[in-house]
């Protein structure tokens, strides 16, 4: 079988759904605290929203265009669409079962109760009525759909009630409908007065209870909650199924209107109301997901952090302060002395913030260049950049905004930076800047010196506390040259030139990966040891997968930790026997990318912003940087190996595309990599601190400083 045979590829959409299933499995894992499980459940729901808006949305569009080509796995668009629908139906059922049977009972045991209206006592009922009259009723306005009036524009990801009213006298056959939008700015959960714990009621239940207030002198026959997902705004999305068709962009341009790609509707809906809804929204049966209440678990995220129930959350892991960057020392002096790798959120993100903050006020710093992807205006990083610009430093910022900038309110901070004299570049045409590089140029006594930070995660303090990512600080001259070149290329100051050590997409990253894999193949064929270890979030790129198959056929051992989508089938006889693929889902979102190649014993280790996806390799500006310092390399390899050894929150990908959660070895406690890494780092910090000699530093009079 050729490496390019479609049977060797897993469909990426189905693989993505398997990832969401693993998150859902965590929601049902009784060893995880209940509120954390609620969080996992909420994530599965918001993940699905995005999946429908972007991926299913583009498949939907392709189907409408009668697109007939197949994907890498040999499935047509319609086949994919159908398989997705079946898989999601099953997943939704499991979401509700998990909520009902696993999460709710444990919350109730801990005095957190979701009450139905008929479970409320008088005081609670009275509170509901008060909230309805004062906060809800004034902002809700029903829309009558009588006389054959079509649906108004239904907002994306918003709850609605479809209300069926009693037909008019004399026209008994003619159903009458009305729509009631539940504005998303209203709180979804209403806290009820209670002496026995934390009691909440859902907003939609309160509305439902008082529905008659909107339709006086009418008889309400049916109240059905529904919610839709629309095609994303294609001009803003990069993760469409462009990999399926080259001329997709033309279709996108031609079709401005966003279709409804999913209808979630309460399973109590009558056949008549359902048909009316489907017809009005123009959805096919496969796009309808009937389910029990409640809809939209994504909104439950806010409940997962309610105060006073810390026993239902993970125990707190405070970020460790790396002794390599002590608080009483300048980050520059630390980086000048040695390369430093930090692994967040186990280790504090503070050195990165300090790095910029010190630069802003340091008279020796002459220039700062940085990429910013998905950064909010109120971040300390942006504040430092503003201060640097104010202090007259040359600041160049390449901003990648979440949305088109004239629509985005938080663009203000970028404009402010510009007003302060910074050079702000608002992204590149057809390419998203996903690389995370910061250069600080200092004029020191010894000459110009550059300090770099290469990250695997965004410059965002909030996500740095939730995602596992690396920070790599270095003052290496050659990497400084490469990093400068990177900025010169993306700012249009220079045409592309070969890098010395690092590499970037879309120019040469795929080839770099392939060359490195080919290197292992060559050495294996020469009878040498060969080993590849990879930790990334997705493996989809066809050319890279084909090269990995060839590597496996040559006997190269390949261990991978792919958190999300993976289109490679491991363990196939004669094709991918030497490949193992594991996925970890735990309290932190696994996000850092590590690429390791044994390289004849030299052990080449790279940190990267890119996954092995066509979007990363072809449509984004990404970077990959080698970690050469022995201590840094050792640390990264240690993280990688610990990840690969996980037996607690790890799932093994099977050759049929399914995942099996690893069973813990009989009776013994398995390896939970995130816990292991935390313990490791904690011990390392203690070791270093205890090995440092105790020095007393007395405060002296300025007259006698010594």
């Amino acid at each position, binding site marked *: 079988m050729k490496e390019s045979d479609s049977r060797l590829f897993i469909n990426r959409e189905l693989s993505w759904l398997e990832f969401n299933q693993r998150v859902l499995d965590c929601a049902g894992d009784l060893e995880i605290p209940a509120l954390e499980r609620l969080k996992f459940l909420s994530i599965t729901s918001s993940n699905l929203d995005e999946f429908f808006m972007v991926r299913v949305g583009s498949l939907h569009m392709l189907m409408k265009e009668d697109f007939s080509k197949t994907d890498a796995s040999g499935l047509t668009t319609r086949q994919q669409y159908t398989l997705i629908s079946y898989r999601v139906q099953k997943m939704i059922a499991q979401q509700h079962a998990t909520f009902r049977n696993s999460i709710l009972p444990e919350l109730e045991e801990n005095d957190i109760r979701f009450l139905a209206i008929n479970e409320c006592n008088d005081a609670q009922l009275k509170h509901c009525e008060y909230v309805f009259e004062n906060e809800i009723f004034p902002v809700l306005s029903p829309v009558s759909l009588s006389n054959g009036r079509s649906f108004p524009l239904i907002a994306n990801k918003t709850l609605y009630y479809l209300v069926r009213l009693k037909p008019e006298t004399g026209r008994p056959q003619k159903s009458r409908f009305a729509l009631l939008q539940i504005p998303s700015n209203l709180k979804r959960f209403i806290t009820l007065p209670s002496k026995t714990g934390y009691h909440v009621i859902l907003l939609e239940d309160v509305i439902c209870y008082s529905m008659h207030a909107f339709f006086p002198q009418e008889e309400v026959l049916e109240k059905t909650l529904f919610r839709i997902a629309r095609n994303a705004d294609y001009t803003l999305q990069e993760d469409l199924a462009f990999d399926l068709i080259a001329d997709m962009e033309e279709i996108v341009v031609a079709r401005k209107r966003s279709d409804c790609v999913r209808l979630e509707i309460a399973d109590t809906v009558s056949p008549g109301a359902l048909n009316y809804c489907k017809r009005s929204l123009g959805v096919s049966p496969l796009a309808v997901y009937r389910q029990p209440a409640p809809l939209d678990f994504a909104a439950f995220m806010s409940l997962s952090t309610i105060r006073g129930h810390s026993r239902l959350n993970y125990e707190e892991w405070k970020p460790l302060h790396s002794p390599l960057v002590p608080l009483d020392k300048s980050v520059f002096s630390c980086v000048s002395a040695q390369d430093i790798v930090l692994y967040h959120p186990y280790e504090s993100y503070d050195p990165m913030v300090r790095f910029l903050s010190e630069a802003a006020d340091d008279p020796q710093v*002459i*220039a700062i260049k940085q990429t910013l992807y998905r950064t909010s205006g109120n971040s300390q990083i942006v504040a430092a950049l503003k201060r640097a610009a104010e202090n007259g430093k040359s600041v160049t910022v390449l901003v990648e905004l979440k949305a088109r900038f004239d629509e985005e309110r938080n663009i203000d901070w970028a404009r402010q930076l510009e007003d302060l004299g910074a050079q702000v570049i608002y992204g590149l045409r057809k390419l998203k800047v996903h690389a995370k590089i910061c250069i600080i140029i200092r004029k020191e*006594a*010894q000459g110009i010196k550059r300090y770099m930070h290469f990250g695997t995660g965004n410059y965002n303090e909030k996500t740095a506390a939730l995602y596992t990512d690396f920070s790599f600080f270095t003052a290496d001259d*050659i990497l400084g040259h490469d990093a400068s070149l990177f900025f010169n290329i993306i700012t249009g*100051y220079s045409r*592309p030139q*070969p890098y010395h050590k690092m590499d970037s997409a879309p120019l040469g990253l795929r080839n770099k990966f392939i060359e490195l894999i080919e290197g292992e193949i060559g050495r294996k064929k020469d009878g040498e040891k060969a080993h590849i270890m990879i930790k990334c979030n997705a493996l989809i790129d066809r050319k890279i997968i084909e090269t990995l198959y060839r590597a496996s056929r040559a006997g190269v051992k390949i261990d991978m930790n792919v958190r999300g989508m993976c289109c490679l089938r491991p363990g196939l006889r004669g094709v991918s026997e030497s490949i193992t693929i594991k996925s970890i889902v735990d309290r932190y979102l696994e996000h850092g990318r590590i690429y390791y190649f044994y390289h004849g014993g030299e052990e080449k280790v790279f940190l990267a912003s890119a996954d092995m996806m066509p979007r990363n390799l072809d449509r984004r500006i990404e970077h990959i940087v080698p970690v050469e310092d022995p201590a840094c390399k050792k640390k990264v390899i240690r993280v990688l190996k610990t990840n690969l050894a996980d037996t607690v929150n790890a799932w093994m990908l099977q050759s049929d595309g399914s995942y099996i959660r690893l069973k813990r070895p009989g009776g013994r406690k398995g390896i939970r990599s995130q816990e292991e890494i935390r313990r490791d780092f904690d011990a390392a910090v203690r070791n270093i601190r205890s090995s440092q000699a105790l020095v007393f530093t007395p405060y002296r009079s300025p007259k006698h400083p010594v």
Partner: protein
Amino acid sequence: MKKIKKAPTPPKPVINPLAVIEIGSTSIRMMVAQARENGRLEVIEFLDQAVSLGRDVFSRKNISNESIEECVKALKRYQRLLHDYGIHHERSIRAIATSAVREAFNRDAFIDKIDIATGIQVDIIDDNDIARYMYISYFSEKDNYVSVSGRKIIISEASGGSCFIMYLNKGNVEYARTTSFGTLRTFQMIESAGTPDTLQGRIVKKQIQRDIPHIVDRSFLKEADVLIALGGDIKFAARRILKTFDPDVLTPLHVSALAQFTETLLPLTVDQIMTRYNQPSADAKSLKPALLYYLSLAALFKLDTIYTAPINIRTGAFLEMVEGGEWFGYLREQVIRSASAIGKKYNYDQPHAQQVAALSSTLFHALKREYKFETRNEILLAVAAHLHDIGLFINTRSHHKHSMYLIQNSNIFGLTNRETILASLIARYHRKAGPRTTHPEFMALTRAERLTVTKLASILRVADALDRTNDQQLKQIQCSAANGLFIITTNTSTDLSLEQIALKDKGALFEETFGLKVELHQKIP
């Protein structure tokens, strides 16, 4: 880029960062670098912007307004980067332009527009500047070339509008020249002839085989052991042929592998090369002619290896800036060697030439402080002293005029074209009539240049007179000036009557110029 390994205490820099901007036929490149104490330079930034100057000039002889705008835009971007490093002063920026600008009819307008729009002053460099910069670049990294340094080396670069070739024997320059063969020029010529895309590769091959004898002067370049090819095209090929390639070190490339790679390129159109290798148009056009040129050169000298090395004019220009434009000792030596090689070509009297040069040097130093001679003047005097009599090769009559003509039409390594003219005039005035307003070559000089020529010719005349018998009797002389006399004292006991007579005749210009009457005294021990 020079690799600087991280050290706990980095060496102190000699100066602040400096920038060299090179305006070529297909690109504008800027190098920002800082000098290290060990004499090496550390490249901080290297930028490269594509421009179409060659396309304009090689076909229409003028730089179009669009291309001027393109250059201004690129330079303004570079300025922003220079601002990051606090490089503002014109003495910290050396902007040079090569063949495309040099050949453009509207070159002055181009330079003025750049100056007005950016404040950057561009110097058009000539063949001799290129040779000098290349040699400095080579010499600054000579440790890199230990493996080949004792051998006969050809260093060559085929660029868009010209082709540079330098011949080193045991590390010494024996020949350096820039010809008008250019890769882009060749491609444009073939393209303008309407040659179908698919045949262009073969035609280029034939054209280069025809051009090679004009590029390589076999009277100088008889044999070579090593060929070092420079420029982006050979590095591009090396990156694709070799598994690992470090452009910062001397790297051997097998001719057979290069030939094989070049063969795969020949059937490809420019568009195909651009797409397949992600190359800009100008680079895609120059690739085939450049590689074919290097292969032809290797074949001519029967070499099975071509080396690539990090030698370029930017490094040379940078290091010269660091030294403040003064001659490096090793470079001075190379200029003299080059002059000697020319002298040999015209069967000069080497002992006499060397004697005159040595005496000139002594006289020069005796007068240097008083008359504020620039260090660079010494090298002009030395070249003129070595070559003052080469006109005898043509005819004994008016041989000083033949000397001037021959010097002007020789490539003296290390001298600019302007300096070559000055050296030729100094030689011309070593005998017979002194500088006059009726001499057009002399009057074409600036006032300062005329003064330099007159002063140095005066010295040369005296030095020549002191070896009138051509037997190098005056081994050591001492000079002193007092009371309107310039006394040259020697302790030789031989008869100096002829020298005394010659001095009477040839010392007149000296007296006229410096206001000192020259006298030769013999101090008998």
